[in-house]
């Protein structure tokens, strides 16, 4: 028993230190930092570099990493990202921090080349190498473990003193309670927020430095650190520091103790608790969310002045008549011509991208139209994929029927989930769906009948009307089929947007209060968005599995889904073209041939150039001619790269991190342009047209007047 309690205490202490930082930054800026674990990773890697590569001794290294570099990192990130997020929409807040989550580890590996992605290294701990040991109540404790527990206790005491008894603490509490009143009283709220981000990053860094000697530095460990911190923050209702601290301890203890009973033998039946330990944070988080629902509703009734949920951006003049058809027709022509100018390998890659594009339309509906951040879409896609694969392969249904069934099965599950979590709204909805997804992953997808020791369930390509869709002879046909499915799905989404249902959803997204008093049932509208998106997710998941040859657990990991959402939002979550672009780009980075990443890099660079041009004030790229030129250069660039493909380009380890880094930067830019890259470019072109038309019209009136 003793060792398990000790292990739980150590785990709990580390995440308690971490959650303190998370709650602090959330309360001061209302930005929930999904990059918290990534920051801890960065500082831990720095600490390792100092001790291992630079030969520093542990204490100076720890002090420099945690007390000097961490606050600077926090200040820097606050200045470029977090500062802008306080007044952004929930979706943008979420995606921007997710972008950092992806980009910061990549940055760490570029700056400190001693570590590579997927590696797992053990650092030297503060307790000496090897750490000394001593006995407490018959349990052997080493000094690394002791440092963690002492460190957490010291942080708890120090933090309490800081908040209760110092002017800084008083000002922080004032600014957290009411930024406006605090500002009137002469407190600079943004200085307070900056300080809280510095402190928050320090705490993340400390957690990282404490964690790395015990569990090693790997992205997985730091993601788990984030996950436990998330759950603890929810237990503390996001803002209560003592509750969150206690919650982190409790989760650690339960996880520690669960190791004792890895499998329980009840005499007649033995059942495995394998999936239990990783599920603990999510089970607790889900219970807490559902329990707090009642509390929140009362709070909502008092808060009459809840503002609009979507920032108001001037809608550009819509294209009408034949002009409106140019875009879709051009995209269709480009898509259909792909087999002419790409080789077989590439057709396979783009096929997967188009299938993923269908899947990504799920975000267009639930997040773009419905205004909800759901992290369960990837699991709904997984349900669709496994259902389709099981029906097609085991039950020998026709593949196309199995795919539709996959979509249909996802709908009731999506509606059930929506019914449970919709009332939560905003960030809580995101966290609730995250917990649901993780539970599903551990309890269902992880089972041997689905996971099949990592190889998943095979699914063949469809066959009907005597057309060959097989991998050997029907590559092109299969690709055309996917393009047609995408077109149909995109048309359905566009229809939805333009219909009465779309109007109702738009109304709800702008102002739930006004929508409700206009007679719109908010719950019903959200359920419609969720149900429709669940079907698309299930169908898209199945198609993705077919294009891949099998439905596997790893394709539908929750983290994968989070990155998907971030990519879709970066490209434009309100645009079906955005979903397609995001899908194709996502698979283009994934294939094992490293040089392909260059294409992605170039495309992203072009998108970013647009943004940069805007930032430095040059508008040339947004003129129709500029856009055309851009597309032309892009086409030439891609062709050149495709021609160069046979030439082997050896990419260094560093260069492999570049696409991830750029993607993260994309999310940072998103903080400035919330509607996504595509919207930004299109909007500017249209506004420009509109301006010119107005000038012409004004000129005409002026002439008429004279």
């Amino acid at each position, binding site marked *: 028993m003793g060792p398990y309690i000790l292990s739980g205490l150590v785990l709990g202490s580390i995440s308690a230190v971490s959650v303190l930082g998370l709650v602090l930054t959330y309360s001061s800026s209302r930005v929930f930092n999904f990059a918290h674990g990534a920051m801890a990773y960065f500082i831990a890697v720095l600490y390792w570099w100092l001790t291992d590569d630079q030969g520093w001794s542990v204490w100076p290294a720890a002090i420099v990493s945690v007390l000097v570099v961490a606050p600077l990192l926090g200040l820097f990130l606050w200045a470029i990202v977090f500062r802008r997020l306080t007044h952004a929409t929930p979706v943008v807040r979420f995606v921007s921090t997710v972008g950092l989550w992806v980009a910061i580890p990549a940055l760490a590996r570029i700056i400190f080349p001693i570590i590579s992605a997927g590696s797992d290294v053990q650092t030297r701990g503060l307790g000496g190498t090897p750490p000394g040991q001593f006995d407490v109540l018959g349990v052997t404790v080493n000094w690394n473990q002791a440092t963690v527990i002492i460190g957490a206790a010291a942080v708890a005491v120090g933090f309490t003193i800081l908040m209760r008894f110092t002017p800084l603490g008083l000002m922080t509490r004032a600014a957290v309670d009411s930024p406006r009143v605090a500002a009137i009283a002469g407190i600079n709220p943004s200085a307070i927020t900056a300080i809280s981000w510095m402190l928050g990053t320090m705490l993340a860094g400390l957690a990282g430095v404490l964690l790395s000697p015990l569990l090693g530095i790997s992205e997985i460990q730091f993601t788990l650190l984030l996950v436990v911190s998330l759950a603890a923050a929810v237990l503390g209702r996001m803002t209560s520091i003592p509750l969150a601290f206690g919650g982190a301890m409790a989760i650690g203890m339960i996880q520690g103790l669960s190791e004792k009973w890895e499998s329980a033998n009840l005499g007649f039946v033995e059942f495995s608790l394998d999936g239990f330990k990783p599920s603990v944070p999510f089970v607790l988080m889900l219970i807490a969310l559902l329990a707090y629902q009642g509390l929140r509703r009362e709070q909502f009734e008092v808060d009459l002045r809840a503002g609009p949920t979507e920032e108001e951006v001037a809608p550009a003049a819509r294209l009408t008549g034949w002009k409106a058809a140019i875009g879709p027709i051009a995209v269709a022509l480009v898509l259909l011509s792909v087999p002419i100018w790409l080789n077989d390998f590439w057709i396979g890659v783009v096929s997967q991208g188009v299938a993923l594009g269908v899947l990504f339309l799920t975000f267009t509906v639930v997040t773009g139209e419905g205004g909800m951040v759901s992290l369960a879409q990837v699991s709904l896609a997984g349900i669709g994929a496994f259902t389709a694969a099981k029906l097609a392969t085991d039950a020998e249904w026709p593949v196309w029927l199995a795919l539709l069934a996959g979509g249909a099965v996802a709908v009731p599950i999506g509606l059930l989930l929506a019914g449970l979590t919709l009332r939560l709204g905003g960030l809580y909805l995101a966290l609730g769906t995250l917990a649901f997804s993780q539970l599903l992953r551990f309890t269902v997808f992880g089972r041997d009948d689905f996971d099949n020791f990592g190889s998943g369930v095979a699914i063949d390509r469809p066959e009907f009307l005597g057309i060959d869709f097989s991998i050997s002879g029907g590559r092109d046909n299969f690709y055309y089929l996917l393009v047609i499915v995408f077109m149909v799905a995109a048309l359905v989404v566009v229809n939805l947007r333009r219909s009465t249902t779309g*109007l109702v959803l738009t109304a709800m*997204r702008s102002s739930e209060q006004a929508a409700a008093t206009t007679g719109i049932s908010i719950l019903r509208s959200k359920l419609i968005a969720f149900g429709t998106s669940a079907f698309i997710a299930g169908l898209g998941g199945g198609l993705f599995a077919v294009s891949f040859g099998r439905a596997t657990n790893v394709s539908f990991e929750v983290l994968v889904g989070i990155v998907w959402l971030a990519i879709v939002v970066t490209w434009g979550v309100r645009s079906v073209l955005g979903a397609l672009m995001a899908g194709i780009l996502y698979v283009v980075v994934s294939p094992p041939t490293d040089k392909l990443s260059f294409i992605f890099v170039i495309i992203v660079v072009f998108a970013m150039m647009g943004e940069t041009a805007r930032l430095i004030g040059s508008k040339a790229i947004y003129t129709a001619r500029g856009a055309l030129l851009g597309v032309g250069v892009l086409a030439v660039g891609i062709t050149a790269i495709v021609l160069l493909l046979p030439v082997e380009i050896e990419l260094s380890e560093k260069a492999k991190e570049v696409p991830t880094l750029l993607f993260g930067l994309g999310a940072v830019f998103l903080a400035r342009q919330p509607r996504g890259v595509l919207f930004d470019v299109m909007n500017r072109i249209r506004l420009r047209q509109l301006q010119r038309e107005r000038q012409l019209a004004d000129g005409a009136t002026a002439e008429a007047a004279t």
Partner: protein
Amino acid sequence: MSAPLLTAEEIVVRFGGVVALDGVDFTADARAITGLVGPNGAGKTTLFGILSGLLRPRAGRVSFDGTDITRASPQRRSRLGIARTFQRLELFGEMTVREHLVVAHRVRMRRDRSLLRDLVGLGSRPTLDEDETIAGILELVGLDAVAEQPVILLPLGTGRIVEIARALATAPRIVLLDEPTSGLDVHETEQVASALRAARDDRGVAFVVVEHDVELVLELCEAITVLDFGRVIARGTPSEIRASTDVQTAYLGTRAAEDVAP
């Protein structure tokens, strides 16, 4: 005299230890503009929340045309014929003026319940009846010129009228207006007032107006209720209210009231 259209009886609301409304009675007649005034913190906005269904009272009863609606949701109230506007504009930021009316009208006509037809692109075309109704409302309140404009490009005063038009598109019998002229200049205030009169005269819609601007209420309303510190201190026609010493005390302080009193 017929029974009033909207009635609140013995309403009590507490926020924590603060009593916001302490046994308030309120009535509004059909086809009339009823004013609800009072100094800051009198409980106007709270009573408004009770009438529109965003707040639930601790005690008391709200009824509409004989039906108890104390616990009815905003959606149900809307369907019964109660609409409202907001003090801080709550427009649908991505829509044009016309779309505001279209969505309100279609929800009223239950045309928002055809998901499958919507997905295949049918069932979302405007009907003749819809076009006529919406054109009628736009003309009535004087918005026809800006019908196709996105609302976020409109000035505040026009935005307020869009809220009123959206409320009218739900075919209401009564519209609750939360400080419809706050932040407006004299000209815009007059526009809003004439839109209200036109809707009342032409459609027989009743209005409840919560206002700071006492002069406007005295000029616009047939009946006025005055709140102070969560209680009703006066009720009557504009001339009765003008003469009431209680109201003068509440607004101008005791001294001034004594000065005015004969």
